[in-house]
């Protein structure tokens, strides 16, 4: 067991973990933040996407120990002071989710996408979200949600 410490959603956390513990396991099992999901075992589906030091990362591809000292943000930390993040609000407004399982990862990826592309075209959105699989929506309303959020975020 090794001690790992990081800041998650603004809170300092620390735990003893086996060295092979993935960041997603640390988030789900140690911190009980279950909004971050596991949808595959090959780092393809993106349901586990979180932000590490401001960048979107598939938390199943990273050991918890690699996030030592990092600032981690999960879906639970996205809304501020009870106000939904514009990306969360846009997914609701545009019916960008159905079963909701891929949604946290999709939203975390989309927030990072808009940060890097403040005014993304449909093509950019589709290319950028290639690493997040949704089986319900056919992506149509996800693309619409991201476009609308980008506008609301002042892009």
């Amino acid at each position: 067991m090794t001690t790992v410490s990081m800041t998650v959603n603004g809170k300092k956390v620390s735990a003893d973990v086996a060295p092979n513990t993935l960041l997603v396991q640390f988030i789900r099992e140690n911190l009980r933040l279950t909004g971050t999901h596991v949808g595959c075992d090959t780092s393809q589906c993106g349901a586990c996407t979180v932000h590490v030091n401001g960048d979107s990362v598939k938390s199943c591809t990273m050991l918890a120990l690699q996030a030592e000292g990092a600032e981690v943000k999960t879906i639970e930390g996205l809304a501020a002071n009870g106000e939904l993040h514009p990306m969360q609000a846009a997914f609701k407004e545009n019916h960008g989710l159905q079963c909701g399982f891929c949604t946290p990862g999709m939203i975390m990826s989309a927030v990072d996408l808009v940060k890097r592309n403040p005014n993304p075209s449909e093509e950019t959105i589709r290319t950028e979200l290639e690493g997040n699989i949704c089986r319900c929506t056919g992506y149509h309303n996800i693309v619409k949600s991201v476009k609308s959020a980008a506008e609301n975020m002042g892009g």
Partner: protein
Amino acid sequence: MSVENGIGAPVRRKEDQRFITGNGHYLDDMNKVGQAYGYFLRSPHAFAKIKGIDLNAAKAAPGVVDIFTGQDMVADGIGGLICGWGITSKDGTPHKAPPHNSLAVDAVRHVGDQVAFVVAETLQQAKDAAELIEVDYEPLTPVTNIAKALAPGAPQIHEEAPGNLCFDWELGDKAATDTAFAKAAHVTKLDLVNNRLSPNPMEPRAALGDYDAGTGELTLYTTSQNPHVARLIMSAFLAIAPENKLRVVAPDVGGGFGSKIFVYAEETTTIWAAKKVNRPVKWTSDRSEAFLTDAHGRDHVTHAELATDADGKILGFKVSTKANMGAYLSTFASAVPTYLYGTLLSGQYKIPSIYCEVQAGFTNTTAVDAYRGAGRPEATYVVERIMDTAARDLNMDPTEFRLKNFIPSDAYPYETPVIMTYDAGDYATAMNMAKDMIDYSGFTARKAKSEANGKLRGIGSAAYIEACGIAPSAAVGSLGAGVGLWESAEVRFNPTGSVTVFTGSHSHGQGHETTFAQIISDKLGVDINSVEVVHGDTDKVPFGMGTYGSRSLAVGGSAIVKAVDKIVEKSKKIAAHLMEASVEDIEHEHGVFSVAGTDKKLTMGEIAFAAYVPHNYPADLEPGMAENAFYDPLNFTFPAGTHIAEVEIDPATGVVEIVDWAAADDFGNIINPMIVEGQVHGGVAQGIGQALLEGVQYDEESGQLLTGSYMDYCMPRADNLPSFRIATTNTPCPSNPLGVKGCGEAGAIAAPAALMNAIVNAIGRDIDMPATPEKVWRAINTH
């Protein structure tokens, strides 16, 4: 007067708040105090005898609580998994249903078959212990391809099914069809493969079993589309516990698409083991296990022939299909290539005679069962591909050929030669709408432009029909269904005026919490935020048949309407008493009860309060305001429409680009158009996946699954798909009180045929799905 957030309004979904904030409750998010973890040792062989299993080393491994094999379950009196729909072969014999133990007893029959269940303190310890189990296998030669499995000399998979034949079934009038073909001016012939698919809901299956030694009650939390049916089967056939001692809970479920209808070995083993070890036990599938064990869909090989007269009118249709059932018969597998397939072969067309025969067989592959559309996409694929092929043979525009043969809109009720009675429809209107949306007449000019750029362009349509809300119970019972296909609902007013609705339908993405609340809002005038929809728990909901076959609104929604009718009837009596009028004079609209011809009125909330505080109340009336209803529909519903796809293909690479998609669907009345559009988008995306990208592949020699992860099985991603243009027409369904038909499967039914017709139109040759760049390139460049 209309109601805010009532029927027809694009209400934003109530359930979204928890999903977008990470507060959903999916199964793997749940944990119980004292919980142990389960892990399945699975067969590495496609077909092998089990000569012995040595657990000694594994049982001594750190953290192991216990390890179970198939013998343990048999010794404990646990029965096998069942198929709930009986099919009768041409010769009058029942379909072959070989034993299907949750854990293998003497043989394994597909890669991934369950061999042992390890329960340990941690998942890692369970996995490590599983590696120490010694299984003595005698490998046998497997067969994965259905045509080969049914051929003479194939490996024999089950003793009980000679020649691997499960059933040899027929539907329609063979003699009449032969006569029609004898008179035909033209016969079009087509061979088709409907590729095997893996459903892939994003949430992997999971189960958490909990045993209460004090009460003897077992609770199974599971990823199910129909928890009551799971309880019924586990109780009646597996003898895991009596129904009154077994609770099944399906919390937030992350997609199903059919694959979570079935009762799986992992669920039955987990709940049984929880009792054996007297601790909560949790099992969560990983994606690799999902590819190996979630029931697959489709896998048909079909020969079809269509007879037409000199005028382009259809005279007869003959279809012969081989359907792959996999290694075992899954819960509703036998219904899919029969009564959900053969019965839809008339499509939207007036076809005087039809004959269909289906041979279903066993192979050393994962079981095949219902996947979004279930039989109806397969039927539509056959009908709509041959319609395009015949039009080409006859030198007719494919849409004109269809329009010429549509069942006319004044012909309802229309009885097809394959035992369906279509109740309402207007196929030409939907087709013409789709043609207008995509500017069908402008295609020639667009094609010329593509050609000038060195590209091939194609357009293809599919005019699909489906039968949803599978019912009534007596009819499906006569066709072999082992259950009734009604639905239940309870509408319960709380004394303060809020409402709790209990439904036997189950939402795993469909948005019932919103749609069903809209019905209550509309009919009873209750604010939508004061309506809570409860589903997925056998201890809360009276009973339920669950969600599949696009049945939730047509059957489950109608049950809610029936319960609402009882609420209104009782409320009128209370209103009459309170306002000193006769019941006949009470009028009701959207939750306001008034005395005809006066300005006296009471709201539903006031009446509900009076029912719970009955100080001034009719003497002969029970207090309280909660009503139950069980609703058995009068008929199936028949959603139908036309989808048109336009593609551009680069002959140098074989890459197909979908440049436009137009859909005109008739779903009858619509409660929430936003949700309906989303259902169509998702269905079309899965249909495009089938046509362009997806296909489960086995190595024929070893029987190994080659497409066992997202690295090998090509899921549609955002950059594979276009945006869609969709619209609806409306012929209200006459057989349910909401006039609704169901929309969940339409896209997946229509899309494969539309897209493949567009590709064939572009390249001028028939190819099978998935139309990968390699396959398309070869078709273009091989002459």
